[in-house]
């Protein structure tokens, strides 16, 4: 092989290596940030804590809220960080709230893969069994679907084992509605499925 060809091959290899590192960095960044957020957002003294789920009911955002950028001051949040690698998690949110509220599910790559708001929840309540996605038609998927149906729950497939659930309750007037919003937050329940 001529020296010029060897040099060219080296440049191509260098470019390929830089491109792979570039792609890996872009792919990994949201996952690293999400992992950090899941650890940071739900503290060790969370309200519910077991091997599959941790739940936290933070106060309304103020200038001292520094866990996550661009916090909404108009929303009361409740968070549930889950890990479905050892089994499903049951989620209930029966809110009697006059304004907007929603329950959103996030995968470990930041995707908001499922959301239900108050208008839809009137007909389809948040009474979910959250399970790690199995191949369609497999024995495991059939068994999970049957167990969810027997429990009277809607089965929601999660694309990643670890993820985060976020309840948002819109608080039009934080001075007058803070106490009511705290009660509404408390209606979110996340527990390991039996």
């Amino acid at each position, binding site marked *: 092989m001529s020296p010029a060809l060897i040099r060219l091959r080296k440049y191509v290899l260098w470019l390929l290596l830089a491109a792979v590192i570039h792609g890996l960095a*872009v792919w990994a960044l949201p996952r690293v940030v999400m992992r950090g*957020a899941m650890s940071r957002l739900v503290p060790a003294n969370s309200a519910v804590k077991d091997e599959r789920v941790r739940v936290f009911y933070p106060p309304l955002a103020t200038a001292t809220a520094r866990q996550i950028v*661009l916090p*909404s*001051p*108009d929303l009361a949040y409740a968070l549930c960080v889950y890990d479905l690698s050892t089994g499903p998690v049951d989620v209930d949110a029966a809110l009697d709230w006059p*304004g*907007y509220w929603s329950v959103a599910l996030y995968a470990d790559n930041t995707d*908001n893969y499922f959301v239900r708001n108050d208008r839809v929840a009137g007909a389809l309540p948040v009474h979910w069994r959250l399970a790690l996605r199995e191949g369609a038609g497999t024995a495991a998927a059939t068994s999970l679907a049957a167990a969810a149906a027997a429990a009277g729950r809607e089965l929601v497939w999660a694309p990643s084992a670890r993820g985060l659930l976020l309840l948002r309750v*819109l608080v039009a007037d934080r001075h007058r509605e803070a106490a009511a919003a705290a009660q509404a937050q408390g209606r979110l329940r996340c527990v390991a499925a039996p």
Partner: protein
Amino acid sequence: MFLSRFWFGLSALVVGLGSAWCVVRFGGGGTVAAGAWQSTVLAGSTHADPYTRARVALGGLLALGPAETVYYVATTDDAGSPLRAHCRYRVTGPAPTARWWSVTAYADDRFLFADAAHRYSINNASPGLPPGQVTVLTGPIAWGAGPWLPTPGDSGLLLLLRLYQPGAEIRANAAALVPLRIQAAGPCQ
């Protein structure tokens, strides 16, 4: 030989990581504009490309998908000048078509400004708004007639417009928003 391989790997690592950071941090792909407002179209969406996901992770983690909420960010006024906390701005326009809208002011660290009275946002339930209109006044001290958002300090300023359950036209095309005007109003403090 070892040194040559070391530099070969290190330079590829620096270029790979550096180019990824530049594209994510400064690239504008996947955004649309409505006046001075920018919206990342696929924020939170399962259809987002890896670059959009990375941008959202850095600048707006846990965003809702566009069917539920559309977000618009402004860091300049209508004249293109960077927003500054110690200056006054008037934000005006027709109320966006949405079930709920709000305008929130953030410092350039992307956190809320300190305010003892918790005046962090103006929304469609705020008192003093003309029917069907948005009026927001920002600045370090109260001024003018209209709802005021305090922006103390000397940092940059970021305005975030949130539209919850926006109208079908905006859901389909975030650029269809009739943009709220952002005008500098008087001298900076």
